[in-house]
Every structure is written in C-alpha cells, then in structure tokens.
C-alpha cells in the first residue's frame, strides 16, 4: 500500500508542475522515463493511467520496446474512461502480435465493449479487435463484424466495413464466403458513409465478384456524389470495372474509334495526315480496317493510342501475342466487346454520376472521374475532362506531378484534346525538374501548326534556362516537334543551327559539361530531323560539315562525321566536298577522341564503298593512311576496327589494279566486299518508329507513375466477361429485402432487356460481316466464357472450338482429331493415375495393359462416333397431305452463322409424286400473328428467349424452283423458336399452294457445344449446386444389343465398358448438340461391373450462352439394363429441367435410332 501511495504522491507533485505546461505533452516525449511507469498503470486515477500510457507511447515512438508492460496495460482495457481506452488500444495494436497470449486476455473486454451503448466505444472496440492480427481471434472478429454490420449506428457499420479487409488479410480461406457475404450486406447499406468503406473493402476482398455490384448498381451510382471523397475514388473504380465487365467498351468512345472503321468523323478539326500502312510493324492487316481518325495526326500517334487502350484492358503480354494473328479475328473480337453508349443505360448512368465529380475539390476524385470519361465517354464529350484536369494542376506540386504523368498519356493518345490549352503547360520557374520535363514532353506532343510558333518562342527562353539539363531536354523537344510537324522542320533546323553557333560562342564560359550536353542534343535533334527527309535538308548537312572544325565535343563531332558517311552521295555538293573533308578528317585523326575515331573509320569506308571514278583513288589513299594511323592507336578498339576493315577490304585496298575489277561487273563482287557493303552500307533505312514506352496503366493508378505493374494492379476486366444473367438470377432470388431495394432492382431489371438486345444486335452485326463463322464462334465463345470459367480463356484455337464432337459431317476430320485427342489424353491420364493409385502391386501388370487398351480403343471409338452420329429425322409433311411432297427435317448441330440464337434445321424435300413440282419454299407464317400472340405471352414469362422478340422468326430459305420426281433436295433453314417446347408454325408453298406445317423443336438443339476441360467442368459444376441442379434416372438398354452383337464377332480387344460408354455417348450426341468433356472409367476389379462409369457433357444455351452441364452416371452390370442417373446443372432452371426430361426420354427410349 505504502509504495503505491508514495508513487501517487510523487506524481501529484509532478502534476502540479505540469499545470504550467498545460496542453502539451512535450515533456512526456522528451523524457518519458523520468518516473516509474508501472505503478502509474496500476493507479486508481484515470489521469495517471493516461499519463503512463502516454509515456509508453512516447517510448514506442522513439523506438524502444516496451512490450514488457503488456499485461498491465491490457488490464486497463476495462477502464471506463475513453481516453484511457483509446491509449490502451493504441498500445495493444502495436504489441498484440508479439504477445498473442496476453492479447487474448483482452478479447473479453472487447466483447463487452461491443455491447456498449455508446457507438463510439463499439466502433473503436471493433476497429482495434480487427486490427489485432491474430488468427486465433479471427473467427470471433468475424462474428463481431457480422453483428456490427447490422448495427443501428452508421459509425459502427462503417467500422465493420473497415474491419473486413483486415480480416481478409489474415488469409482465412474458410471464411472467405462469409466475409464476402458481409461485404454484400454493407454494399446494400443506405448510408453513404458506410458505402465508402464498403467499397474499399469490396475492392480489396473480392474485386471481381461483380454480382454484388450488379444488384446495387443503379443505387450505388445515384449515391456516389454523397459518398465521402475517399470512398468516391474507390467506388468510381468499382463501378467502372463493373460496366466494362458487363457491357464492354463503349462504341462511341475514344477507345473504340482506335480500333474500328469509322472514317467519317469530321467534327474534329486537326491536321489529318493519312496513315500509311507501315510494313515494318506487322499491323498491316489491322491497318486495313483501321479508322483513319482525323484526330490522329501520324502513324505513331494512333498506334500509341491503340496501344494505350490495349494495355488498359489486357496488359502488355496479351497485346503483343495477339499481333501474331494476321487474320481478321482480332478486330472482330473488338466489335463484339463493345456496346453502344447511347442505348446502354448503365453506361449512361455511370457517366452522368461521375461528371459532376469533375468539379470535386479532391484532385484524386477528379482524376478518377476523368479516367472513367476518358475510356467510356463518347468522343465528343471527352473534352469535358480537360479543364478539370488543368485546374488540378494548380494544386500542390506533388499532385501536379502525378496529374501531369496522367495527362501525358492522354495528350499523346489524343493530342487534339489538350492542343488548345498548350499555354497551361508552359513552364514556371518554380516547377521542379520532373515537372518541367513532363511539361516539355506534353508540349511536344500537343503542338499543332497554329500553336507551334508560340511554343517555339517559349522554347527559346527555356534554352537559356540556368538548368542545363532542362535546356538539353528542350532541344530534344524541338527535335520531336519538328518530326511531328514536318512543316516546321526548316524553322526548327534554322533555330538549332543558330544554337550550335551560339553555344559554341558561349561554350567556354559557365558549366562546360552542360553546354556539351546541349550541343550533343542539338546535333542529335538535327540528325533526327534530317533523317526524315534527307534530300531537302542537304544544305544543313553541308553547313554542319563546313563547320565541323568548330565543334569540339567528341560526341557531336562523331555524329556529324556519321552524317558525312551516311549522306555522302546525296545531292551534288556533298560528293564534291568529300575529298577535302576526308583529308581533313585524316589529318585530325590522331587528335580525335575514341568515338570520333571509330566513326571516322566507318564513314571513310562508307564513302569509299559508294564512290566511283577518280575519287575512289584518293579515298583509298586516305583510308589506307588512316588505317595505318589507327593500327598504331593506343586504344585497342580502334586497332581492332582498323584491322577488321583492312581484312574485309583487303582486296580493294591492296593493289591499284583491282580498281577495274571492282568497277567491272557487279556480279563479280567479291564476297568480302559484299559483306562490307552490308555492314557499312545500310544507309537510308526508312525511319523506324521510335521505340515507344510500352507501359501504360490505368489513369490514376500508382503503376502509371512508377511505370511498372505494382503488386495488386489489375487491368480492366475483360470487356463483357460478365455473364449477362449471372446476377439477374440472384437478383430474383434475393429480391425479398426492403421495399426500396426491391423497387431498385425492379427498375434495374426493366432496363435490362433493352441493353441485352442492343448488345446482341451487335453480335449479330459482327457476324454478318464475318465470312468465317468458325472464327467468330470461337471468338465470342472465348469472350463469353471468361466470365464463367476463369481459366478457360485459352481456347481461342479454332480447331478445338468447333469440335462439337463431330456430329457435323462436314467437320468430321478436324473434329474427330481434336475430339479424340482430348478424350484419349483425358482417359490415359485420369484412368492411369487413378488406376495406379488405387491398386498398387497386384494388378500392376494387367492394369497398365488395360489402360493402354483403353486409351487406344477410346480413340477409335470416338472417331467412330463422329461418323456414326446421325440426326434423327422428323416428318414435317406427309406425302399424303402434301400432294406427294414429302418433307423431312432434322436438327443440325452447326452453330448458326447468322445469329447465335437461331437453330439450324436441315430440311429434305422429296418428290414422291410422278410430276415435277416447282416453286417450293418454306416460310414463316406471317398471317398467323394471332396465334403468335399466345406464344408471346409465354415468351414474356420465359426470360430465356425474351430478348429476341424483334429478330426474324426464320431466315428464309432459298427457293427450290423445281423438284423432279424422286429427287431429294436438302435445304438448311435457321429458325428461331419462341419456346423450347412449342412448335413453330410455318407455311410451305408448293406449286403456288400454301400448306401449313408445324416444326417441332427439339430442346437438345437449343444448346451448342461448349468446349471445356474437365477442370473447368468440375469448377463450374461446383458453382451450380442446389437449386440449379436436377437429377433424374432411367434405364438404359441400348448397349445390351450392342454387346450381344459383339459377342458373336469375338472382339476381344473391345472392352465391355467401352462399348457402353460409346453407346451412351452416341445416343447423347445423336439427340443433343453437346460437347463430350470426359469419360471416367470405373475403377473396379470386376470388369463386368459398369458402376461408376461417368460421362460429362457440356453445352451452352444458344440464346444467352448460359452454360449447361450434363453428367451421366451409370450403375449396374454390363450385360444387364443399366440404371443411369442424369444430372443437369444449369442456371436457367426451367430450361435445365426441360432438357433433363428430354435426355431421360431419349435415353430410356429403346434403340432403333442407332445403326
């Protein structure tokens, strides 16, 4: 008791001295250990505890380890005083990881605080609890977060949203779904304060779980301006990514114009230079249909912009890899990835909600909003972002730098945007060097013919800047400007030449090094300008050569000497000067610097190789003189070069007699001379585009500034990668929340069909233009699939894509190959592995043999299937009813070339009568509108076909002008069924008579094969459990006959199970348009037991590309009728159920269809 009392007394006296220093804790920071902290912590008085804790904090700040106080501090968590609590929290967070056991002691107090009536206490408790990075308490925190997410207080809910990323950061795999669920709850919150934090947690936990956003999209957009500014930044990014994933890029936007044909846009001024197809770069094919955009004044620029867009979406690697494709595929891909900004509500809303944010006070918000507009807004609206961005430039210098980094990319991709505002990029003396450099770069890329004179005036001042590094940059910028604007080249050259004189005059005073740099830069700029059009700048070259003596800087000299060699045969004057120049060079050779020496040698050889007649003789003498000097040079590089040249040109140098020989006949050229010409004569190459900085990242991201993908950087999601109905369904499921939300989601749904139909129209359009339906199907399939099967985007190989396991006779070849290869590989791998694992030792021999057999026979059997798949044919018109015309039809497995949702039907017309028939045509029964309306109502209830109401019912077939008796003519029609069960009423015209017929749909052909591997299949399947899964079973007997047939013929190699599997597969493929994913062999000792045989088929629904998976599992003995259970996994539940019924029906149907 006493020592404690003493301590208190001591602190009391201390406290009295403290009165004079009220309000500052400086003394605590300066000497935190001047009192004993431990007793203070145990004090009864909150103020003393506070002081002790402050001392501890001071020690922490100064880097001391005070974790030994942990137990004592933790005890104080129970304190009622908020001050003490807060300080304890701070301490706890700092040391909890180091002292996990003691930290656990505090949990109870946290739990208690979570029930505190004061919301501040609850919020702090949750925040601190989540901040303790201990796995042990994570489940507790999760429960607490879940509770707090429904707290009445906004502050607490916000804390809950903030706590989620902390939890997620602990990598709790088993809780991920629970965490995501809470994110969903919080995103539903109506308070903007919570939404900001919820957006941040969404972005860091599940940035690609767009279904959470889809449900709330419109509401989130509306509330966006009210969210606190930091949340706005994150939320804009999320909404933006969602729209890209859902609808793709916008057709009217800048990004689109960079890809697609749109040659007639004259609303933008600017000098349009025709883009010449650049042979070197391999863009040839794309350039053909590449819009010659008026804004793009030069090849480099447009390519630059295209690249920017590409990099945004897919990152650099993919972009480069796609360049290898030379077919029209890539550009088609783009078309299907775009949506129309005018008809798409989601895009419109996003743009509407972000545009006021351009006036925000927060520069990061402005930049984020500008980024959205940059990529999404119609081109004529992009200029909205210009002024806000320029205004942001007025803020602090550090954000100025960041904004300039972004403007730089914008300006390069679309110079016209910033061109009128060039004055804003003029340099102020207070700018830092980085900012100056960025501004220069922007200026040189936005200069136009009208502004260039002003810009040059500025540049002239910049050259006089005391910062010589900056002056050199300016010179380089002048060079760039001249290259961009060929008209200005002469003016630039004059200016630069003047500069060389001036520099030289003032070169002896001031910092010599800086001046030299500038001179080098000047010559380099001149060089690059001349390169563009050497013949018109002949005089400049002459001038430079004349004044060669006055240039002292070795690098500059070397460059001029290079020009001598390069342009030695240009015009009339230069060749006449050459002799003198070479002599001059030779005489100065010993005193030159290394690089100049090397360049001199090169140039003389170049001159020599081009020379003719009497000059040659003198040149040779010069060369041999120089070579002699060079061979005795101190530097080994020069010596080596000399020897090398000597060797190569030995013959032409050796004796004068050879002269004739050289001039003799070109074909007699010696190899060494040819080599020499190749090495030195590679002049006059076309100007290759500047190696561009290939790194572009999304506007506003850190990666754009440090120019590498920082960890966590993600490009935009794949356009339209989000399945359309991915969340519409869930929308319906969970639509039973609050009234308000229901209304929102409803209104959202109503918007939907419109956008869907719009987008589908686009796909159709792209289809029409594509001559190659296969490429297209692969492309669109690929883009659709990425959303559903994340790993499945590597199937852009058309060969695999068309492999609908070959029920299409035409594709037999490719199909059987790919299909069999797939199957063989799968079987050998899966079969062998499972076999070896399950039965080691005993069955080793036989099994390996077995599996081999499996592999090989499987291959055969599948190819057989390709042949044997036969379409079931139905009668459309009986000869009895049709005056002797017999019409049969069967469904075709080919994917329609016109539109995705059309079903191909092969119709066979046979004339059974004795007279020829004429004018046979099958048409949509137009007059039957009345009966259609009944279907329409059905359609409305069935969302699956709802979006195609406006499409034609049938692509009309080619008319059969005449049909001879006994003749059979095949026609393929493509029909759109209103419903997958109801027949389509058509009218058949024959000999001028109209016969009503009914085309009965087969649901098996409302799907198309969807190529995927087993992994993708199981992955997908696991996501479609519960209400999306239907199972039915039936008895399958077809194989019995097949096996009995096999018995007689003694097919020892043919495995019973294989026969069954073949039968089943055949039956399935004959009746439905599916893709056989895998066949799992039963792993049992008994060869007669077929139990466990499992076939997997995949397909996607024609109309909406929703995947539909079918798994067939077999039970029973091989020779008995088998019990088959069929499982369908499909999001479109009605469709799935109907398909299941159909499959059960035809499987149970006894054979007879099979040959």
């Amino acid at each position: 008791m006493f020592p404690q009392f003493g301590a208190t007394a001591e602190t009391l006296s201390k406290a009295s001295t403290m009165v004079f220093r009220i309000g500052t804790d400086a003394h605590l920071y300066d000497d935190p250990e001047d009192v004993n902290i431990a007793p203070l912590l145990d004090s009864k008085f909150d103020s003393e505890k506070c002081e002790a804790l402050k001392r501890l904090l001071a020690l922490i700040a100064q880097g001391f380890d005070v974790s030994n106080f942990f137990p004592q501090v933790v005890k104080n968590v129970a304190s009622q005083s908020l001050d003490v609590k807060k300080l304890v929290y701070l301490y706890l967070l700092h040391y909890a990881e180091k002292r996990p056991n003691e930290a656990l002691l505090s949990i109870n107090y946290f739990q208690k605080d979570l029930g505190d009536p004061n919301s501040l206490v609850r919020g702090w408790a949750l925040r601190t609890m989540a901040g303790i990075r201990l796995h042990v308490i994570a489940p507790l925190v999760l429960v607490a977060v879940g509770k707090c997410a429904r707290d009445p207080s906004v502050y607490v809910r916000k804390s809950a949203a903030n706590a989620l990323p902390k939890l997620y950061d602990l990598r709790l795999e088993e809780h991920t779904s629970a965490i995501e669920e809470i994110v969903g709850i919080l995103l539903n919150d109506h308070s903007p304060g919570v939404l900001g934090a919820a957006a941040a947690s969404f972005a860091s936990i599940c940035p690609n779980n767009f279904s959470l956003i889809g449900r709330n999209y419109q509401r989130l957009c509306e509330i966006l301006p009210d969210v606190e500014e930091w949340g706005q930044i994150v939320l804009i990014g999320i909404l933006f990514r969602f729209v890209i994933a859902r609808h793709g890029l916008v057709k009217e936007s800048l990004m689109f114009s960079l890809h697609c044909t749109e040659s007639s846009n004259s609303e933008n001024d600017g000098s349009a230079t025709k883009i010449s197809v650049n042979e070197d770069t391999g863009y040839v094919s794309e350039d053909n249909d590449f819009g010659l955009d008026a804004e793009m004044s030069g090849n480099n620029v447009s390519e630059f912009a295209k690249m920017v867009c590409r990099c945004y979406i897919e990152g650099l690697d993919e972009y480069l890899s796609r360049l290898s494709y030379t077919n029209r595929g890539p550009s088609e891909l783009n078309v299907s990835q775009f949506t129309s900004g005018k008809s798409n509500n989601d895009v419109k809303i996003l743009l509407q909600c972000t545009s006021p944010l351009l006036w925000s006070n927060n520069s990061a918000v402005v930049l984020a909003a500008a980024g959205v507009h940059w990529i999404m807004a119609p081109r004529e609206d992009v200029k909205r972002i210009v002024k806000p961005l320029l205004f942001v430039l007025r803020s602090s210098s550090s954000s100025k730098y960041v904004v300039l980094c972004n403007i730089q990319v914008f300006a390069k991709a679309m110079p016209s945007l910033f061109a009128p505002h060039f004055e804003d990029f003029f340099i102020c003396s207070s700018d830092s060097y980085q900012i100056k450099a960025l501004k220069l770069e922007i200026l040189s890329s936005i200069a136009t013919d009208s502004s260039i004179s002003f810009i040059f005036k500025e540049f002239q001042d910049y050259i006089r800047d005391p910062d010589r590094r900056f002056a050199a940059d300016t010179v380089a910028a002048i060079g760039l400007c001249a290259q961009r604007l060929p008209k200005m080249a002469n003016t630039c050259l004059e200016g630069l030449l003047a500069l060389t004189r001036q520099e030289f005059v003032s070169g002896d005073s001031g910092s010599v090094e800086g001046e030299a740099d500038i001179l080098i830069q000047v010559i380099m700029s001149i060089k690059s300008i001349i390169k563009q059009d050497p013949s018109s700048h002949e005089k400049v070259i002459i001038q430079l050569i004349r004044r060669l003596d006055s240039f002292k800087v070795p690098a500059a000299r070397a460059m001029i000497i290079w020009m001598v060699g390069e342009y030695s045969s240009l015009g009339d004057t230069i060749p006449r000067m050459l002799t003198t120049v070479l002599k001059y060079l030779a005489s100065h050779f010993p005193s030159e610097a290394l690089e100049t020496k090397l360049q001199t040698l090169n140039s003389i050889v170049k001159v020599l190789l081009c020379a003719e007649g009497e000059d040659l003789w003198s040149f040779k003498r010069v060369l041999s003189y120089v070579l002699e000097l060079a061979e005795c040079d101190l530097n080994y590089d020069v010596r080596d070069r000399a020897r090398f040249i000597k060797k190569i040109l030995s013959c032409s140098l050796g004796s004068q007699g050879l002269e004739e020989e050289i001039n003799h006949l070109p074909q007699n050229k010696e190899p060494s001379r040819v080599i020499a010409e190749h090495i030195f004569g590679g002049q006059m190459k076309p100007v290759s585009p500047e190696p561009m900085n290939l790194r572009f990242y999304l506007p506003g991201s850190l990666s754009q500034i440090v120019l590498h993908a920082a960890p966590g950087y993600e490009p935009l999601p794949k356009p339209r990668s989000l399945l359309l109905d991915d969340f519409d369904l869930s929308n319906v499921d969970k639509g039973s929340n609050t009234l308000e939300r229901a209304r929102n989601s409803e209104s959202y749904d109503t918007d939907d069909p419109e956008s869907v139909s719009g987008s589908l129209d686009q796909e159709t359009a792209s289809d029409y233009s594509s001559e190659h339906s296969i490429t297209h199907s692969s492309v669109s399939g690929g883009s659709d699939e990425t959303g559903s099967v994340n790993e499945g985007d590597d199937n852009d190989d058309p060969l695999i894509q068309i492999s609908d396991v070959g029920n299409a006779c035409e594709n037999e070849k490719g199909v059987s190959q790919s299909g069999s290869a797939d199957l063989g590989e799968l079987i050998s791998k899966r079969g062998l592995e499972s076999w070896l694992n399950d039965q080691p030792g005993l069955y080793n021999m036989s099994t390996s043999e077995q599996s081999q057999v499996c592999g090989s026979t499987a291959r055969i059997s599948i190819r057989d299937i390709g042949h044997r798949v036969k379409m079931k044919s139905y009668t459309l018109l009986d000869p009895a009813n049709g005056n002797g015309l017999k019409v049969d039809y069967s469904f075709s497995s080919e994917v329609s070339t016109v539109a995705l949702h059309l079903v191909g039907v092969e119709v066979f017309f046979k004339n059974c009568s004795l007279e020829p028939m004429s004018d046979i045509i099958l048409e949509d029964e137009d007059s039957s509108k009345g009966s259609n309306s009944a279907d329409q109502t059905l359609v409305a209830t069935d969302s699956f076909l709802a979006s195609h109401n406006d499409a034609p019912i049938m692509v009309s077939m080619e008319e059969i002008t005449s049909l001879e008796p006994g003749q059979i003519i095949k026609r393929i029609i493509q029909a759109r069924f209103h419903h997958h069960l109801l027949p389509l009423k058509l009218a058949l015209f024959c000999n001028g008579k109209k016969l009503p017929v009914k085309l009965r749909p087969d649901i098996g052909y409302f799907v198309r094969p969807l190529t995927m591997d087993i992994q993708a299949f199981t992955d997908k399947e696991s996501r479609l459990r519960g209400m999306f899964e239907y199972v039915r079973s039936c008895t399958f007997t077809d194989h019995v006959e097949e096996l009995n047939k096999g018995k007689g013929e003694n097919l020892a190699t043919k495995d019973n199970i294989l026969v069954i599997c073949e039968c089943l597969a055949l039956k399935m493929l004959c009746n439905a348009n599916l893709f056989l994913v895998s066949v799992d062999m039963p792993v049992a000792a008994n060869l007669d037991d077929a139990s466990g045989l499992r076939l997997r088929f995949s397909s996607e629904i024609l109309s909406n590309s929703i995947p539909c998976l079918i798994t067939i599992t077999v039970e029973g003995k091989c020779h008995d009728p088998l019990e088959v259970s069929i499982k369908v996994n499909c999001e479109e539940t009605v469709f799935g159920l109907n398909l299941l019924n159909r499959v059960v029906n035809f499987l149970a149907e006894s054979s007879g269809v099979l040959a």
Partner: protein
Amino acid sequence: MAGAASALFLLDIKGHVLIWRDYRGDVTAAQAERFFIKHLEKEGDPQSQDPVVYDNGITYMFIQHNNVYLMTASRQNCNATSLLLFLHRLVDVFKHYFEVLEEESLRDNFVVVYELLDEVMDFGFPQYTEGKILSEFIKTDAYRMEVTQRPPMAVTNAVSWRSEGIRYKKNEVFLDVVESVNILVNSNGQIIRSDVVGALKMRTYLTGMPECKLGLNDRILLEAQGRAAKGKAIDLDDIKFHQCVRLARFENDRTISFIPPDGAFDLMTYRLSTQVKPLIWVEAQVEKHSRSRIEIMVKARSQFKERRVVYSVLFVSNPLQKVDSEVGSLFAL
C-alpha cells in the same frame, strides 16, 4: 485498384522517424528510415524530387512541410493521387490542431497525433480528414472532463461536414471573394498567359441544418431561364466546389445549393482564363559595369485605377546565378 498505404511516417528533416503508424504490418519503420535517408543523400535538393519513389518493392510517397516530411509507404498498387492528397489533407488537419506543423509541434502533441493517425486512416484507407469534424471527438485539451463522448453526428450523418444541433443567437453569413491573378510573362515582356484563380470564402454562423443557395450571374443559368444577360454573365465551367455543394443538382439545373459547414470554408474555387492586365508592371534592366559591379534598374508601374491604393508591395530580388559566380570569382582573387 485495391491498394492501400501500409504505413504512415512523420519524419524530421534528416529523415529520422518522429512518429509512425503501422496500418498493415508489411513495412517497418527501420526499412523506411533507411530508404529515406539514403534517398535524401542521393538527391541534393529535396524540393525538386520526384514525390513518388519506388524502392525494393515498396513505393514511397512523400511531401515536405516546413521541417517535417510526411510519407506513406505501400506495397500495393494504390491511387497515387489520393494518397498524396491525403498527405496534404493531413497537413491541414495538423495545422488545424496545432496551428503550425513542424517537428516541435508534433513532439509536443504526439499523443494527439497518434489518435489522429488512428482516425484519419484505417488499414491504409483514408477516412475523415476534416479537421473540424475530427476535433469534435479527438480533443487536444488534456484536462477535459467530458461525461459523454459520442461520435459527432457529422460522422454518422449523410452530411459529414456539419454537426447537428448548432445554435446561434445571431445568424450570420459572410462571403468573401478572394482572387489571385497568375500571369506568365516571357522574356520579351509579352504576356503569354493570364488567368484568375478565385475562391468564394464563406464564414457561416447559422442555426440548425440550413439549406443555402447561391445565385451567380452564370451565363448558362440565365440563358436557361430565358433572361438575356443584362449585365455581365460569366461562364461557369472551370470550377471546383466544396464537398457540401450538391454536385448532381448543379449538373441538372445549375443551382448551387448546399448545407454549409459551420465556420469558415471555401465554397468554391474557380479559374478564369481572361486577359488580365497585371496590376503592377515591373521592368528590370541589368547593366554590367565591371567585373564587380552590376546595376539593376527596377521600374515598377502601377496599372490600376487611380482611386485605388495598393499596400504592401513586396519586391523579391533573386540573386542571379551569374552574379553569384562572378562574385565568387572576385573573392577568389
């Protein structure tokens, strides 16, 4: 996009950590300190540095204020603009609390700094950065005895910049327009660019949750209302509004409506790029008389109306580099 700061550092002028707050636990203070000191040594003049530096997997962003560096470190791709702006806001918050932000004031108030750092950023995500709001639940006074401390209504409210229950006997609103003129003149004395950056500074002492509206002679608004611009109408397009202005409303019908924060704030800032005559025209003539003597003639001419008087004109003369070097050489002799 999902990027957040890992830690926040307050460093002294030599690059030593004064106070730091760890948010995600993947960057240590020692690491950051080492980097920063190295960085300071490498780059001579800290003013002209790149504010974003990547080093060994960590990206550092920093700004300088007086003799303090504020720096964030991050291992992820984060929004650079927002973090830099956040640092600036942090400076404002500190200034709001301690009047001046410098090493000494940080030391003096380190506990409050800790509390603030805890509140302004959570797990690397910026939170409330309004000094006024923060000061309602983080008090500087060590001897306050408040019975109930609750989160201010502002935090829990949709209107995060104003607390409820504010009462004044006398309701007052002050509106100041402060404009600054920026002129860029080239060496020939020609004006290349001139613009006006102005701010509407308000001070409000109003009761309750008042909804205010500000009418301006906005050309678009006037034209929309069918009133031909009688006097001068202005184009309001290059503007920035305080958070409190309902941007969506302005977008729709061009009315500036807002619930003002209590006290002083900048309602709106704008920029006009019009031809402005500089108020005072200064011409300087430099004459070199000998190696040691330079004559600089500065002529200042006022260009504003006669009846106005300007106070406190300040000339700042920058010693030219050339003078420097020549004086240097003189002394060497």
